[in-house]
């Protein structure tokens, strides 16, 4: 075999082995690599109070309220199967609105309420001029929250009925 061919095989085989190794490692760390958990996972696992976690999903329509002190917001984050109530004291990002994706970081307190220390808005992959968005909504072809990542199978029929 010529040296060139030998080197070619060597490079190809090492890259294949490296690819397999990386795949195995990434699979093993799958749970550490997610940026946030969904409300369903939270409901299923009941994390210990005080442990800092990130929770992602859609802000449930009609759930955003301001509490008595005027600076604390309360809202529910849903993945259309389960939802979690969040309390957050601070300034909300511009893109924060009902039906939009968010990622909140915080922890459950002793009484089982999720207190967020940080709220990040999650933008989806749709880019539209305002007029087109308005026209789509008017013609009923609008899919609220479609493709926000937290809910791969989000349907237009999103709403109150799906919360716990």
């Amino acid at each position: 075999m010529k040296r060139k061919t030998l080197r070619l095989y060597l490079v190809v085989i090492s890259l294949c082995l490296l690819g397999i190794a990386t795949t195995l490692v990434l699979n093993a760390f799958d749970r550490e690599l997610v940026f946030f958990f969904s409300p369903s996972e939270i409901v299923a696992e009941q994390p210990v109070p005080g442990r800092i976690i990130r929770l992602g999903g859609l802000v449930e329509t009609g759930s955003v309220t301001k509490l008595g002190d005027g600076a604390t917001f309360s809202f529910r984050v849903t993945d259309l199967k389960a939802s979690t109530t969040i309390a957050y004291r601070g300034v909300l990002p511009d893109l924060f609105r009902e039906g939009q994706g968010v990622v909140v970081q915080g922890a459950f307190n002793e009484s089982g309420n999720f207190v967020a220390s940080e709220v990040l808005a999650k933008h989806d992959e749709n880019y539209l001029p305002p007029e087109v968005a308005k026209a789509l909504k008017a013609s009923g072809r609008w899919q609220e929250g479609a493709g926000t990542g937290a809910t791969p199978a989000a349907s237009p029929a999103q709403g109150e009925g799906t919360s716990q």
Partner: protein
Amino acid sequence: MHRFANPGRFLRLATRIQPWLKGLTALGFALGLYLALWGSPPDYQQGETVRIMYIHVPAAWMALLAYLILGLASASALIWRHPLADIAAEAISPVGAAFTLLALITGSLWGKPMWGTYWVWDARLTSFLLLFFLYLGHMALLGAFDDRGRGRRSAAVLALVGLINLPIIKFSVDWWNTLHQPASIVRMNGPSIDPSMLWPLFTLAATFHLFLLAVLIERMRTLLLEARLRNQRLAAFDQLQPGSRA
């Protein structure tokens, strides 16, 4: 293909096409930036901030493309020992690093008003930062040895190992949930960007490709001329002092 891989032929060809390439790049930037800044609508949610996307997305694509070129050049340098492949690898890595940094900075500037933070450690952002470090590592390794050949070989191995990061960057938004949004252009059911915003993006993306090519050729030309100059100096030195370099 080997016909064009001859350094002398490459230099002659480069001299001929460089003016055209640079002219086209300038025209492309003028048209693309006009479309991106004035000739396109604001987004229904992001408002005017969407315009950052017209630089961020092409810059990120070029960062990936430059790494692919670096990987292929490194592979052919290792396997076929082609001198021009070594030159190409050495020429492309600072360019790729610059595009990576541009994508990181523009993304961060977009992230603050939209997400509410400059930076998060999600899979997409972290793997992209790793790309930047791979470029820096490649540049550092190239110059880390007294023997140029050894430096090039170890840098080429690093570049090949780093290739594994490319699919991770691309699919990070699909494999794991991330704060970064999933792909808008290269995806199964067509782009999810309105045509009025797609055109400025495609114009600038095409221009970025031309720009990458022009800069790559310019740097390869410089590196080749430098090598030629070095050889001539050594030859002149040998003539002045015969027998001084055994």
